[in-house]
């Protein structure tokens, strides 16, 4: 894949979502020797991992193993946390996102994120999605309307909210709020979508809607999902990484990892013997 330069966004040629010469398994995100410290204690130790393009990669592991922290390294959201020190490199499309000249806001526009707890802004449904576009300087009302509709349709929410776009987003149900957050994340047309336990606070019906959505979005986005739920990882992901105590224990295709794990630790976890 061609090396893209995030420091100079105008030079980036957007790849068409339909894909072409790139094989679907080409690595898009390459993590190399990544360690992260909160003050003196290490939350991630020497992680090396390649995440393939336009597939779903799941991070699993017991609570506190560092899977969310690792996810937040991919859009540099850990930057806002105090006393964080990061070693190693993270390359997306060949560009080291931790190199000094990187525009973090441009990075985050292209690496969208959905959080564990649905966090719509206390604004209208429309404004929630328009916000990401507005901060990018988009003013054209017609264009905005179109993007809002397209994003809501992609998030399978349009039919439920099309009559009340200007009502407060806080009036939606938990599952709807989470799909709104997904719509908000894809409105800026990112290439990568990070999901931090997106269904952990939802009931089974809403969860299955989100999972269907993830499978549909896979056509267009590279999705990295953190999940606590191993069935969920098995259902929706193509690759799975198992982390424990800040270390990457095993990374493989999901079917291999769940049916024929290479390490005893992984087997213990996926069969429910600990964690």
């Amino acid at each position, binding site marked *: 894949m061609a090396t893209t330069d995030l420091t100079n966004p105008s030079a980036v040629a957007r790849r068409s979502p339909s894909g072409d010469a790139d094989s679907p398994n080409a690595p898009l995100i390459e993590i190399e020797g990544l360690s992260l410290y909160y003050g003196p204690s290490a939350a991630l130790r020497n992680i090396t991992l390649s995440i393939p393009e336009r597939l779903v990669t799941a991070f699993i592991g017991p609570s506190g193993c560092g899977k969310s922290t690792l996810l937040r390294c991919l859009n540099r*959201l850990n930057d806002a946390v*105090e006393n964080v020190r990061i070693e190693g490199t993270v390359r997306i499309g060949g560009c080291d996102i931790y190199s000094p000249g990187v525009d973090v806001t*441009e990075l*985050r*526009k292209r690496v969208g994120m959905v959080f564990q707890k649905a966090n719509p802004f206390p604004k209208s449904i429309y404004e929630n999605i328009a916000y990401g576009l507005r901060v990018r300087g988009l003013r054209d009302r017609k264009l905005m309307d179109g993007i809002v509709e397209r994003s809501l349709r992609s998030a399978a929410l349009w039919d439920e909210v099309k009559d009340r776009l200007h009502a407060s987003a806080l009036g939606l149900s938990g599952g709807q709020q989470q799909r709104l957050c997904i719509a908000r994340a894809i409105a800026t047309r990112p290439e990568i979508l990070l999901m931090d336990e997106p269904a952990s606070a939802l009931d089974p019906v809403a969860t299955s809607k989100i999972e269907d959505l993830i499978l549909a979005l896979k056509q267009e986005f590279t999705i990295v999902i953190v999940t606590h739920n191993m069935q969920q990882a098995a259902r929706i992901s193509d690759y799975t990484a198992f982390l424990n105590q800040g270390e990457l224990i095993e990374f493989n295709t999901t079917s291999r990892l769940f049916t024929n794990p290479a390490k005893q630790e992984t087997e213990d976890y996926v069969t429910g013997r600990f964690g």
Partner: protein
Amino acid sequence: MSDADSVTTPPSPPPAKPPWHDLARGRVARPGEWLVEKGIFAVSLTAIVMILLIFVFVGREALPILLGQADSAAARVQRILPPEDVDRMTPSELRAALGLSRRKFAARSLEEQKAALKEIYAVRAEADRNGAEAIPDKDSEVNTVGWRYLILPHQWTGYSRPEFIWQPVSQIQKFNVVPLLVGSLKVTLVAVLFALPLALGAALYVSQFASRRLRAWIKPAIEMLAGVPSVVLGFFALFVLAAALESVFAFQSRLNAFVAGIALGVAIIPVIFALAEEALSAVPRGYVEGALAVGASRWQAAWGVALPAAWPGVFAAVVLGFGRALGETMIVLMASGNAAILSWSLFDSSRTVTATIAAELGEVVFGGHHYRVLFLLGTLVLAVSFVANLVADGVMNRLRRRLASSS
């Protein structure tokens, strides 16, 4: 325990257990604790009781004017009665005319009292004849504490047009409160407009940008500003601020509403800061992270998401700051120049309601008209600050609940 012992020793009858109906020990099983609880409940109520009592006692003094019963002209117009009218008076009318307490009145006979009143009237009639010849003044027939004269302009003798005049110490006392209200409003507005951007900026910085270590320094420092005695701030305004601002703006009166407003603004910065910072810090972290995750800068996230979410808190902070500024006395007394003139210019000396009360209440006739008008002003300040506090408190509580439920 005893089970193990019972193997070797002959079984002893089990200890008698208290019957179940012993549970019903009456509503007050522990009278001491009950008493203490009620006691501290009463203590906690004292704040409410105090507010009520202050309202009652301050308001009571202003009541005659509020109800339009006071009449400053009445004494002048009705003070001379012919002797036969005095003879026809009932004892209670006589007592009222003499202004005596029941006990003092009873100490002498009715005849003696009537003679005393006639004598007083004779002296007053004499004085009045002399006075009336000296200055025939229609102002003396005006009830200067009537609502019309308290609020609307009036063309007093010697003035070329109707004017708002506060002149409580003069032959004819003039109690128009409009110059004082305008003075208060001017100073308070300057204070709020000066304090709001500074306090809000500091609150935004402390809650959204500052590192934990920096926050641990800045927050107490600003809050310490609230501990500066207002007389010290007034002193600072009087000597340092007034001189500095005079050299910048070159205004005519060195002490004016602008100087007082700036000093007052310094005093209410901690008030506005504390509330605004609390509201901004209560904004769920997820809002800001959500904004960052779609590519907003930290500034855009703070300004476009955190601030709107905390907006009711900022409103409450402004209302509370307004109430505090309106009630503040010492700074304005020292730095505003204290000229009770009606002027909309910020650079004219002016006088606020509170400064007027502080300056004049010590020298009024107890129970007189001036006294009552000052109490009326006091009631007004009390009511406005009370409402401001109430509104700010209500808004903050609703915001806290809303943000807590969505975090």
